[in-house]
């Protein structure tokens, strides 16, 4: 791996989380490290070169060499699998970490491209269909899921007094979707 990039936005996001709840912040950081370690391990097992990792406000991004659809499917699944496994192992001793890690895995499994679930869906569809059809399905599913996510976030914020963070989180996911679409166009 040639470089590790930590942006100011990532530091700001950690500061905000620490200010809101130090315990949850530590669990989130640990959960994120474990999640990325899962991806990294599978990338190494598949023999795909990792050229860098960027820690940004919207999450971590691993830069890799070219890979096939089967490899992408496996590598995308490995992160959420590591998160869910960690949640299962720790749920009796470190329950807050287990809940955070479980949510981390679950959110990453949402069928939203470029998140892990979206990558899995895209790779699975591309293995069995044409590229045009795959892109059509991915676009509809991604924006449909984002819409539902935003509604759910508003419901949590308004009806359950969860605060504004669910809306922030949904906005960040929406920004990642938009940025990925523009980059690939």
């Amino acid at each position: 791996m040639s470089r590790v990039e930590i942006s100011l936005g990532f530091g700001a996001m950690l500061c905000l989380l620490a200010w809101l709840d130090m315990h949850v912040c530590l669990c989130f950081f640990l959960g994120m490290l474990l999640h990325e370690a899962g991806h990294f391990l599978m990338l190494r097992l598949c023999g795909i070169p990792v050229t860098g990792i960027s820690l940004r406000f919207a999450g971590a991004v691993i830069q890799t060499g070219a890979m096939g659809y089967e490899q992408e499917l496996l590598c995308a699944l490995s992160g959420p699998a590591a998160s869910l496994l960690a949640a299962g192992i720790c749920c009796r001793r470190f329950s807050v970490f287990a809940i955070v890690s479980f949510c981390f895995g679950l959110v990453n499994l949402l069928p939203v491209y470029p998140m892990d679930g979206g990558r899995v869906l895209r790779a699975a569809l591309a293995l069995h269909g044409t590229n045009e059809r795959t892109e059509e399905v991915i676009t509809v599913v991604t924006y449909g899921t984002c819409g539902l996510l935003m509604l759910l976030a508003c419901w949590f914020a308004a009806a359950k007094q969860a605060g504004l963070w669910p809306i922030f989180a949904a906005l960040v996911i929406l920004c990642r979707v938009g940025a990925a679409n523009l980059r690939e166009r």
Partner: protein
Amino acid sequence: MEEKKKGSGLATAFSVLYILAALCLLMGILGICYPAFGQDVRHAIGGWENSPFRQAFGTLADGLEAGEPVKDVVAESIEVLTGEQG
């Protein structure tokens, strides 16, 4: 023309993220300089102490650490969240 559109779209997406990042820093400074106001902002962003969301989170965490069956704890937490209990 296409390149210009692409660049401006990306800039807009990243601007939103940078605004959020700046907001985070501002909230942090507010919390240190004006603790009382900072506490209100903290509740507005992170949720109120006695909110159904926090209560459900607490029920789930406590139940799991107490060794109760996962299915029962999850069901109880959902009841707390939806307001069918407590």
